[in-house]
């Protein structure tokens, strides 16, 4: 029962442990591989894209720098061309020398040149005071520009003042200026200044924005934005300040590459280029997320591939473990069947792998078990036959012996009767002995028959009240031998699981012996008690009788062995053999302990539950 119940549990545990081990192994291999692969791919992809982005930004910055430089030179040349025109020089020279009305012609000329030159405003300054004497914006005439860089430089040569804040325009401005020289004396009679069209600069900065987050702007040495970055929602020129260390380094003249938060606190890849002619740092940047995004996509894809292959691996592991479990199942079922006693079960596995070998091994084992069991059964059968024969023999011998015994007994008595009173007393005594011997032999034969029957009788175990049984047997003994007074003490409440009629025989023998061997005792006492241990109950029958020499204990239980002469104590000599046989059939054992002249104790151990 135990084996058939526990096997399925083992089977389940086995399969689960198998699958989890398979899955763990697959994951142990796959996870590090995928992690390393993803990390390497991320690193390589990111590095590659960063290099590419840096190269792209550097190219873009160089292009913008060249474009800005060319545009600035163009503005410088444009103002120099207008300032150097003979008509301009002669008109201004005449206006300076002549009446105020002559400035109208200068004003007219400025208006004519404005459109072609590409400036948003043209004006002429008086070279000593810096006062505007003629302008395309009439409101500016009369104002002073004496401290402006373009004026101070423009008196000597063609010059473009980089982007600055014009307090007059209240906006960012860039102004080109060049001296107007007297046609003959070449002395400076005026300074021509042109307001540069700043949206052109903004257009150059915005040009070729390759990516959606591309951005380019200029920062002046005060850290102020002088152009509008794409992603600042408010006007930034001369309002927004950057204090980023990379920009500070650029403003100190060091161009370079940076990675970090920009003016919006968004991580960006940035190329910074110092433009000396603009007195500004050119910042060209792209959001890190956009530039390195493809690497992240690749990494993500690889990570997903890793997840998918991991799932596939786990699935494969589960399939594999399931297939192994499936092939182990017949072996398990076979073992269970074998356990239940079915001997015909065979697996006959297909294939040639280890699991097939296991199946073949099972089959071999089942064959061996079947053969062994068949041999055992054969032995048992032969043994049974021998026993039966022996019993039949013993019975027939006993039975057959009875007839001559009866004849001996009967004829002896009839001889005594026939002889009557005249018979020699010696002969009468001898014949009496013959009769008694025949009777004794009859008892022996009865005991032998009983012994053989005990061996063959079917066991019907049930709960037996040992206390009541012992009292019953003791009462019976006392009734047969009313002359003696034996004190019998029986423990209360003793019960065992046994065949009641056989157990009665046991107690008849044990108590009978005690009764018999306490004859020498002055105060004969018999005690019946019990102890329990390890699933056994020990019932002990002890007396204070003649006892026996412990050296002969092993002879006690052999049939017909006697430790006392038949003259001293009557008996057939097979009582204890009978006891041992009955207790043995119940799965128990009998022990004897004694001392010559000081009583004996017989202990029968019986399982508390019969099998």
């Amino acid at each position, binding site marked *: 029962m135990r084996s058939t119940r526990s096997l399925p549990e083992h089977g389940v545990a086995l399969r689960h442990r198998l699958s989890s081990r398979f899955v763990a192994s697959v994951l142990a291999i796959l996870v590090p591989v995928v992690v390393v692969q993803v990390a390497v791919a991320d690193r390589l992809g990111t590095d590659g894209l960063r290099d590419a982005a840096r190269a792209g930004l550097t190219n873009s910055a160089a292009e913008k720098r060249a474009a800005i430089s060319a545009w600035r030179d163009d503005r410088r040349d444009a103002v120099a061309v207008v300032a150097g025109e003979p008509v301009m020089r002669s008109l201004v020279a005449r206006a300076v020398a002549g009446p105020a009305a002559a400035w109208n012609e200068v004003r007219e000329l400025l208006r004519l040149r404005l459109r072609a030159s590409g400036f948003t405003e043209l004006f002429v300054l008086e070279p000593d005071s810096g006062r505007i004497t003629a302008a395309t914006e009439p409101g500016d005439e009369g104002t*002073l520009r004496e401290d402006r860089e373009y004026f101070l430089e423009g008196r000597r040569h063609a010059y473009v003042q980089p982007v*600055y804040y014009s307090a007059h325009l209240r906006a960012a401005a860039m102004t080109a200026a060049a001296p107007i020289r007297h046609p003959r004396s070449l002395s400076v009679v005026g300074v021509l200044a042109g307001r540069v069209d700043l949206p052109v600069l903004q257009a150059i900065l915005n040009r070729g924005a390759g990516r959606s987050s591309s951005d380019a702007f200029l920062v002046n040495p*005060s*850290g102020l934005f002088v152009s509008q970055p794409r992603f600042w929602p408010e006007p930034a020129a*001369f309002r*927004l300040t950057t*204090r980023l260390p990379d920009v500070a380094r650029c403003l100190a003249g060091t161009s370079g590459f940076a990675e970090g938060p920009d003016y919006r606190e968004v991580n960006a890849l940035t190329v910074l280029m110092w433009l000396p002619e603009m007195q500004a740092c050119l910042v060209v940047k792209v959001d890190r997320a956009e530039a390195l995004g493809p690497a992240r996509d690749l990494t993500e894809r690889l990570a997903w591939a890793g997840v998918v292959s991991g799932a596939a691996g786990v699935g494969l592991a589960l399939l594999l473990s399931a297939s192994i479990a499936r092939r182990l199942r017949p072996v398990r079922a076979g073992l269970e069947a074998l356990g239940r006693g079915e001997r015909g079960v065979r697996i006959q596995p297909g294939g040639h792998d280890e699991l097939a070998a296991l199946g073949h091994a099972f089959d071999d084992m089942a064959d061996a078990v079947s053969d062994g069991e068949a041999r055992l059964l054969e032995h048992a059968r032969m043994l049974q036959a021998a026993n039966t024969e022996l019993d039949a023999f013993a019975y027939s011998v006993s039975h057959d012996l009875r007839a001559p015994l009866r004849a001996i007994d009967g004829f002896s008595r009839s001889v005594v009767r026939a002889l009557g009173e005249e018979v020699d007393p010696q002969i009468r005594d001898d014949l009496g002995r013959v009769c008694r011997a025949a009777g004794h032999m009859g008892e022996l034969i009865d005991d032998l028959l009983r012994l053989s029957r005990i061996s063959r009788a079917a066991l019907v175990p049930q709960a037996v009240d040992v206390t009541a049984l012992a009292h019953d047997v003791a009462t019976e003994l006392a009734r047969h031998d009313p002359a003696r007074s034996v004190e019998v003490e029986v423990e209360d409440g003793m019960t065992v699981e046994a065949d009641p009629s056989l157990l009665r025989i046991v107690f008849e023998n044990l108590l009978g012996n005690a009764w018999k061997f306490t004859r020498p005792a002055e105060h004969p006492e018999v005690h019946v008690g019990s102890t329990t241990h390890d699933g056994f109950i020990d019932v002990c029958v002890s007396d204070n009788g003649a006892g026996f020499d412990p050296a002969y204990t092993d002879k006690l239980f052999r049939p017909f062995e006697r430790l006392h002469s038949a003259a001293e104590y009557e008996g057939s000599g097979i009582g204890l053999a009978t006891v041992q046989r009955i207790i043995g059939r119940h799965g128990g054992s009998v022990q004897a302990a004694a001392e010559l002249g000081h009583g004996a104790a017989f202990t029968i151990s019986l399982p508390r539950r019969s099998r």
Partner: protein
Amino acid sequence: MRGLHDPRWAIGLVALLFALGAPGCGEGGSPRSLDVVTVQLRWTHQAQFAGIYAAIEQGFYRDAGLEIRMLEGGHRIDLVDRVAGGTADVGVESGPALLRARDAGRDVRAVAVIYRRDPLVYLTLRSSGITKPQQFEGHTLDTEADIAPVVALATANGVDLDRIKIIHSADNVASLLSGKADIITAFVMNEPYRIRAAGQDVNVMFPDDYGVHFYADTLFTTDRYLHGNREVVQRFVTATLDGWRWAIEHAAAVPALVRRFNPDADLAHEARFIEESIPLINTGEAPIGAMSAGAWDAMARTLRRQGVVAETFDPADVYTNELIEARVGGSEAGGS
């Protein structure tokens, strides 16, 4: 039960009080002892001091270990007296006023300029046709008691001051609208709007366009205070300029900021004020706050020409750029 006589009980109680008391004191007061700096404003609370408000509200002063107390200015308050006399540690005054005070022997030292360009402008009605100082001759100018800016303008543009009638009235806008005056001096963030609100177009003349370059609001202290508290002033200047940088970058937030200090502030007015102020403050030619030797020389030259300061007066005595320069160096190293 442990009795009150058990000394361990008392020790435990004392320790508990310490444990509760120590952080409580720290939070209730300040994490570290703050240096108190008292600032004398040039006028009552308005967007003119947005940078200081921003530095307070953004915690720039607190981060610099400073606690700021502000004193409002007014018509009757002599700003130089307040600082030189020790009532305030730092003040806000115009460049020419500081030059005159130094020339008069007062202990003043400019440490940073906020309004590099003067918001004091000349206004005429569009209908008058007066658009240039050269046209002032023969007209009436309503201005304040201090006519130094007017003298400077006249001098720089060859205008004969004797041919201009100068009056001082309580309400310059009223005198312009009524025709009592043809020209008035006014602040660019105030009066032009009042005149336009009255339905008149207005011509605005900036002295900066006519050769007069006066520093307006300039942070100053005294040499005496600077000597003992140079590092405190350094921190004050740095935090104040950070505040101004913030205010300029967040001009839209300034009106609400002003209202925290002046609950009566008109938000629209303060918004105009800061918009008009930014071009005068953040001129881009140098880091915010930085003063130029050329500008001080030019101011001193103008005042000498007017005879307001002594011929021997050296403007180098009135300002120092060292605190600004230390700050610029620091910002480049530190970044943010």
